[in-house]
């Protein structure tokens, strides 16, 4: 996959991330933020190290957020007169600087990860699911687990069904049974697991760390290894 393709594929991701950071709805071609974010994504691709343990999109999100903050500083008058906080991209020459930069990102990633898991936990709680429940009902066999994940995936794909889940906070078992061909009994048994998985998949762009950690039986839309 060429870099252009990757950038193109990541456009929606860049868009949502930039919108969130700037806290308004942006528009391609009109707002500078989107261009800045796209450049930041490009930078992230250069800098990303898979060994760091941080998923690429999470990394990219951090870089985009950081660059956009720089952008806003530069825009404001106060920021104009002040010294830029960090030299841009290639200018980061010294080893020391690179090291501290790494430490900084690592810490930042850890905090983000922590927040993400807490948020996921809260989301689960609002559906009446706790991590303890998941321990109890997560299937021991890989096949069963993958079946349930498949069910969760198809649930997310079917917007109407997912809508039903988020409204009623209950799993539309009969429809799921029809769609996936998995026996109702099994669906029932893994009910909480399916809910958890479906929530995670449906908001995989928010729960980047969790979703990328999981070896989901399907790609997550974006290949993290370029």
């Amino acid at each position, binding site marked *: 996959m060429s870099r252009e393709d990757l950038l193109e594929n990541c456009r929606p991701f860049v868009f949502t991330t930039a919108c969130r950071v700037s806290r308004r709805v942006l528009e391609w071609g009109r707002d500078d933020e989107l261009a800045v974010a796209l450049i930041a994504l490009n930078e992230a691709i250069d800098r990303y190290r898979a060994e760091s*343990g941080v998923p690429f999109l999470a990394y990219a999100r951090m870089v985009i957020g950081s660059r956009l903050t720089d952008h806003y500083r530069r825009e404001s008058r106060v920021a104009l007169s002040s010294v830029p906080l960090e030299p841009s991209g290639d200018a980061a020459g010294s080893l020391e600087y690179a090291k501290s930069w790494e430490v900084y990102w690592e810490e930042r990633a*850890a905090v983000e*990860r*922590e927040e*993400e*898991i*807490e948020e*996921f*936990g809260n989301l689960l709680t609002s559906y009446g699911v706790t*991590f*303890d429940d*998941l*321990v109890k009902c*997560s*299937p*021991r066999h*890989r096949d069963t*687990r*993958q079946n349930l*994940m498949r069910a969760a995936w198809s649930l997310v794909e079917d917007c109407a069904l997912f809508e039903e889940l988020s409204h009623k906070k209950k799993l539309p078992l009969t429809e799921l049974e029809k769609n996936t061909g998995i026996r109702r009994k099994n669906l029932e048994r893994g009910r909480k*697991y399916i809910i958890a*998985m479906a929530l995670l998949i449906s908001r995989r762009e928010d729960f980047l*760390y*969790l979703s990328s*950690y*999981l*070896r*989901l039986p399907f790609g997550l839309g974006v290949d993290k290894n370029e």
Partner: protein
Amino acid sequence: MNERGMVVKIKRKTCIALTAEGEYRETPLPGGAVPRLGQEIQLAPMRRRPYLKQLMAAASLFIILMAGFLYLGETPPAAAYLTIDINPSIELAVSTAGKVISARAIDDEGEKILAEVKVKGRDLREAVGLIVAQAVADSYIQESGDNVIMATLTVASDAEPLVDLNSVYEAIKKPVESSGLVSDVIIEPVAPELRLEAAGSGISTGRYLLLRKSDNKGLQISVSDITSMGLGKLQKEKKLSLVDLVAGDDNDRGDVDNSQGQEAKTTKRGIYVERQKAAGEQTKQDGKVTISGKKQTGSDTVAEDVNDNASKGNGKNKNEGNGNNGQDKEKSGDNSDKRDNNKHDR
């Protein structure tokens, strides 16, 4: 087993981690620093635990069941019931093996006694002895006063008594005697139906029996008299002999039987022993009268009137055994004749 997972929840001693395979697993916290949320940790192999849990659950269930069966096996349904009335009334359920299955207090005093002695599982004789001994200790049986101990044992109409009545008598007698007291002892076999009737009216079988007998005789004893008073006190107040009352019924029957053939009915067999305070030790050995159903003499009444003579009279009856009823009657007839003669002479 070399699995790793991302910590999603930290508890006091364990944490929950999500593996790359999508399994949520609870694992003990790794040694050293407490992990942060989202940190990747090594998972302890712990697949075997749920299996162990189930096994233990099954094992404990099995043990409980076995214990239950053993327990049930040891307590067969009651084969007979024995009630003791002193003042406290207690009913003992007895198994076919002659063991006490359960004890039930019929009044408050009985409850007090049962709180003191543990009779469940004991041999009936032993249990009876314990209860009487406790009654003595709680001074329900006193040196001065009319002491009556009444026991009833349910016996099905066509069956032998489960426990030998004589041995029950011995069990009652021993603790009373050993503390130097005397008491009337009534031991009466009753039909199981009677016990049910008694239970229906909420009083002990013995007292119910007394009530019935006194009704038969046209005596004025109310239910409240029977239930509120100790047997000794009842005897004193109503100026009657309970021994007489209970045994007397047999006497009547004996007469009927006599006319039809003496050995016809021998199912009813009671022990009636009456002792007088004044008679004391002397009467003790002689005071025992075993009635074989057909025979009940008036000698007990005599004993009440003439203390020392009573022993002789009783002894005589005992020795003479069957058929002395008629003799007694003849005697009394003779006496009246003599009296008549005397009158005539005057």
